[in-house]
């Protein structure tokens, strides 16, 4: 089955594409050279016999953990052997080794080591960094507790300073204070950076980070006073030992508090950190990664669903003719193409945030933090907006594959269960949207008090101009040019402005009812989330549109323009109520938008397969029988199924144990 040629349908699809997929791949990678290097690393990993293993779908959770830890150890050695040190290249390498899946050393590499670098004193770095770099110390980052996640101030773990012994005494005083969820904590780590409420001289000084040894070096047994284990099976993340940690009067030396910023002196005197804005930086960075991950996960699901839809034939469109590819049905295109456009949109948004982050980080090192609050607010919202959309989109892709999408061989269930927690981790999405809303409300009140605002919210300045001209927003209908993305950006801008304004007014009305500030905020929060969504939606459309100007190849430009139009128009069609209610667009214009969406589906149809080919996922990385590059789906489903654990023996043992005795009795 291995040496089969490419399915004829897919060959035809690829031949009919109007552009060169490689050129688009280069744009996604950020240049031809980067594509080359990515593929080089990909080949390095995928051709390495050490990284081969049985299909993960057939392994138990313990076995998957074992495979992952085996590969992780090798990965760390080989990265150093090959001298790969660039963060992006490390990311690629890791992603190919683990096929885009989490692994037990994620928190050691992604949180423990970086936190040491940024928050440890030079003395602490001497003690911990090299052993951690050499994996003598394997660490995790223990923040989330059973009772509290995104709301950090609510964490209950305590670290009480004892000046008599110069130690901190760590405790998990309640069930809810047990650390719960940290990756790599359950089985792998022997150290953890623990976030705890610091008490010194009888006062609580808020959350601080402590390096806590949890397992004996050598035997790996938990230390006295430490209860640690795995939190049990989850929806996904089978290879990750998310863990729990309970501490009972566990003592660590004073020097184990990370003291680059805040400090506790030997006598217990507390020294405050200089600025807390710096922690924004890490959050922005991680949330920008989630935006990129939204794009990649949705791209993988689209690749699978679109290739499969080009291979699968079903029913009839024209009486008497052969069964058509299901990709020819309007309903199927309507499910998949807007998601394809979304995947591209999110790629560009992810790249934009990453670039902005690097630019702003440059400013931070020179002491300029002025752009950070907006970037922080923007990434919070975009993290939520893109992960919610991708989460739903992955499921739509799976459903578009019908029954076979439900089989693990489709690969989409795995993409979904791996991706869906990003709606929760690094900031629960609704809470994130409300953070963005807080920034929007602040900007709005600045505008109403006569100040100008800058950046992505500058459209709010227009609101005050209109007020001066006594012109209500609702009275303005946009002259929409349906084939011009710039004109559509204007429509989205008006929608965001109108929803921000309406939320602000509702908030004010609640406040006027003599409600407390918090109560009024809560009673407006559904409106506030809608306002943030509209703002993020505008940003995405704007960034996608801006990207078009950078594309030089005419054929690629044409196809991306169509995707951008589809993204923008589909969003209007889906949220028609907002545009109608605000009077931004008329019913006739909405009808025109709906019609044009359908026309664009037909326009994009010939390039659909080439557009997912451009994502350039290797089959091994894609992990899907339905999405194989060669399209030989059915043969390989059969080959795959034969390896299923239930097929290990011809007659299952339960026949002898249960069935036969029953038949004998009846």
């Amino acid at each position, binding site marked *: 089955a291995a040496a089969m040629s490419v399915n004829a349908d897919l060959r035809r699809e690829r031949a009919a594409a109007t552009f060169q997929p490689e050129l688009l791949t280069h744009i996604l990678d950020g240049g031809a050279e980067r594509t080359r290097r990515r593929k080089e690393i990909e080949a390095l990993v995928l051709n390495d016999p050490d990284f081969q293993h049985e299909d993960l*779908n057939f392994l138990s959770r*313990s076995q998957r953990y*074992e495979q992952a*830890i085996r590969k*992780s150890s090798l990965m760390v*050695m080989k990265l150093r052997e090959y001298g790969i040190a660039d963060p992006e290249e490390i990311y690629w390498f890791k992603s190919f080794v683990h096929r885009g899946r989490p692994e037990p050393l994620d928190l050691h590499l992604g949180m423990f080591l970086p936190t040491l670098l940024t928050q440890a004193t030079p003395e602490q770095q001497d003690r911990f960094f090299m052993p951690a*770099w050499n*994996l003598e110390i394997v660490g995790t980052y223990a923040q989330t507790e*059973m009772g509290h*996640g*995104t*709301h950090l101030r*609510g964490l209950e773990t305590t670290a009480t300073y004892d000046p008599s012994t110069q130690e901190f005494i760590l405790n998990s005083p309640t*069930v*809810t204070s047990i650390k*719960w*969820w940290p990756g790599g904590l*359950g*089985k792998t780590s022997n150290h953890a950076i623990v976030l705890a409420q610091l008490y010194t001289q009888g006062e609580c000084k808020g959350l601080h980070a402590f390096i806590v040894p949890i397992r004996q070096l050598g035997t*790996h047994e938990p230390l006295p006073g430490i209860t640690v*284990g*795995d*939190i*049990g*099976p*989850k929806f996904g993340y089978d290879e990750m030992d998310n863990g729990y940690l309970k501490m009972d009067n566990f003592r660590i030396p004073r020097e184990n508090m990370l003291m680059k910023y805040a400090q506790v002196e030997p006598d217990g005197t507390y020294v405050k950190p200089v600025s807390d804005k710096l922690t924004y930086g890490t959050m922005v960075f991680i949330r920008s990664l989630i935006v990129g991950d939204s794009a990649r996960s949705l791209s993988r699901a689209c690749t699978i669903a679109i290739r499969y839809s080009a291979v*699968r034939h*079903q029913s*009839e*469109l024209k009486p008497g003719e052969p069964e058509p590819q299901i990709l020819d049905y*309007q309903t199927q295109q309507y499910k998949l193409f807007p998601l394809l456009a979304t995947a591209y949109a999110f790629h560009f948004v992810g790249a934009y945030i990453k670039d902005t982050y690097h630019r702003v980080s440059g400013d931070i090192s020179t002491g300029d933090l002025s752009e950070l609050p907006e970037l922080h607010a923007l990434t919070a919202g975009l993290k939520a907006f893109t992960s919610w959309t991708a989460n739903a989109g992955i*499921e739509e892709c799976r*459903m578009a594959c*019908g*029954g076979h999408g439900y089989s693990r*061989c489709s690969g989409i*269930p795995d993409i979904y269960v791996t991706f*869906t927690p990003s709606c*929760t981790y690094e900031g629960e999405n*609704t809470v994130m949207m409300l953070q963005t809303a807080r920034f929007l409300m602040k900007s709005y009140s600045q505008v109403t008090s006569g100040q100008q605002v800058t950046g992505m919210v500058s459209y709010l300045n227009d609101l005050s101009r209109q007020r001066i001209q006594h012109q209500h927003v609702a009275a303005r209908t946009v002259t929409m040019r349906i084939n011009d993305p710039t004109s559509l950006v204007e429509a989205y801008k008006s929608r965001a402005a109108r929803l921000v304004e309406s939320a602000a007014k509702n908030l004010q009305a609640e406040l006027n009812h003599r409600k407390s500030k*918090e*109560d009024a905020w*809560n*009673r407006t929060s559904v*409106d506030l989330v809608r306002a943030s969504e509209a703002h993020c939606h505008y940003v995405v459309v704007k960034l996608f549109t801006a990207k078009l100007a950078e594309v030089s190849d005419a054929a690629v430009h044409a196809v991306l323009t169509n995707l951008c139009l589809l993204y923008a128009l589909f969003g209007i069609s889906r949220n*028609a*109520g907002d545009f*109608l*209610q605000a009077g931004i667009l008329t019913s006739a214009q909405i009808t025109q938008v709906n019609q044009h969406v*359908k026309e664009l589906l037909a326009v994009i149809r010939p390039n659909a397969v080439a557009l997912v080919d451009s994502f350039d996922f290797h089959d091994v990385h894609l992990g899907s029988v339905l999405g194989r590059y060669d399209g030989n789906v059915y043969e390989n489903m059969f080959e*795959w*199924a*034969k390896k*299923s*654990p*239930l097929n290990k023996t011809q007659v299952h043992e339960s*026949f002898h144990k249960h*069935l036969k005795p029953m*038949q004998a009795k*009846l």
Partner: protein
Amino acid sequence: SVNPDLASERQTASFSVEKLTALLDGGTEQTRIRRAVVEAIESDPVFSRENQYFQTQNERYEAAVRKAVHLQKKMHEMGWTENGPEYKYIYRALSGDVAFLLHRVFMRSISVLGSDKQIAKWIPLATQHKLIGSYAQTELGHGTYLQGLETTAVFDTATQEFILNTPKISAMKWWPGDMGRSATHTVVFAQLYIHGKCYGIHPFIVQIRSLQDHSLCPGITAGDIGPKMNFEHIDNGYLLLKNVRIPRENMLSKFCEVRPDGTYVRQGSQKINYFTMTSVRISLISDEVLTPLMKACTIAIRYSAVRRQSKLKPGEQEAKILDYQTQQEKLLPQVAAAYAFHFINDYLQELFNRGYGEIQRKNFDMLPELHALSSGFKAVITQHCTAGVEICLRACGGHGYSLLSGLPSLYTKIIASCIYEGENTILLLQTARFLIKCFMAANAGQPVPPSVTYLAAVKHGNCPAKSKLDFLSPDIYTEAYQHVAVRLTSSTAAKLQDLIQSGVKKYDAWNQCTVQLVQAAKAHCHYIAVKNFAETVEKLETKAGIQKIMKHLCDLFALHGIFSNTGAFLHDGYISAVQMDMVTASYLDLLAVIRKDAVPLVDAFDFTDKSLNSALGSYDGQVYQRLYEWAQKSPTNQMSPAYERYLKPLLHNTLSKL
């Protein structure tokens, strides 16, 4: 003891929970029987599901077979029979975690499609489990589109046998439950050929495994199709047939028969086939779709009353997350939908029973309407409830992601219902076909079935609401739903006609309108659901606060639908921009009102802790303690070989290499 945060929620219920439970069950006597069945099943350790989240596919399958076998004994012990009042509660009590479900489908298809002689031969064997049956329809290459199936059954007059083949890879039977490992027999659907002529799809009884040693019969290749998102306990299977010969008598022949000389005889109406599909689509709504949503709501709402996070007022205790408007906006509409669909299920059941009566009298007039409604509602309800379960899952934050919350398995199970028994988009298009046909007929003055008469009586004018309170009037919102359904159907019909008149081929025009057609079909079902909910509320008894709370839920269901789809209602100005603000205000007000009864409303679903099988959703609300204790039982907390094999070398031996 009960967590005080949950206890306090129960003290303030505005209605009698027990009375609402009885209403859902259809009477206090039904509640009593159901509870007795649940008690009998749950007190038996063989049926325990406590360890299921820790088990592998092989272990799950074996447990399901063991339960199925044990169930026979249990039924005998308890005196439950297939026709008794207890029977329908058994599946719910087991949460479906049992093998041989397809055995019943096997039996039903023989009863419906078989001749009297065939019934007399096969049903007793199946009843006594001398054989285990399955139902092999779906193939690798074809699902909902039955005409496309590729398995063949060629009649050989010389030997009076059918020769069955799966001539190519895509013809292989794929997905049938119980077929991978368990079944000895199956009903195979195949294209019938006689003397080289194809007569279409027909059902055949085929033995696939030996009754002695369970080995595969000659010419048969069968096995398990591998891991899925859920249903690990079921051995969905594949089946290859190579020149498998079966006697002429094995073709199920109530409606069609092949005579010994190869003459093909059709008898009775084929329409009855539609009736079987209709019956399956309606019957799955309750157990497979509503129950999971109700369970998910129970878990998410109880957990939201226990979980405290952040502060609403400075200086006060952290607030229950159920007090956040955004959390209410996620969960309460799901509760309202669960009730709305419970009542629509009653409506469909009743319609179905009437239809069945008519068919017994050889009157098939009700079939098209029944088929359209069952298809449309199967799609709308499965889609809505699946989305609802996922919302509940995500509303539980990180802990929802743990299998121990019970939510991931509810989700992965309910989601299959969007595909099986007819892919939803295709079903909606079938409903749409019926709507367009009826719309044309109604406009031509011809009579149409009762559920679509509204298509003819188009009223003009706009929504008369003047204040937000007007939107709590069922007449106001039901009219609005009706208006949208009529508008979408009539505009799509017009569009279709335009296209056809402009020279587009009929099938092409249809494909070009399918996105709109799907929307029209959904709007139709949504309208009927709202109307039915409002009418049901009207008829409820006013005592014990039941009618009042159901009225709130009905309002919420209706207004949530408008709020989440404002474009459809604003489009032609039926609801104005100002009125839409009233809808939003009324809708958000309702959340705060229903919030007070949220826990009692899910308590009324009356799920035991064992049936929820959730660390977050138990009745006593001792969430964290349970989560902690349960996690410690995970097999991953036994010493894993990974340490010795990989971790130890990683932590020690590799150091030199770094």
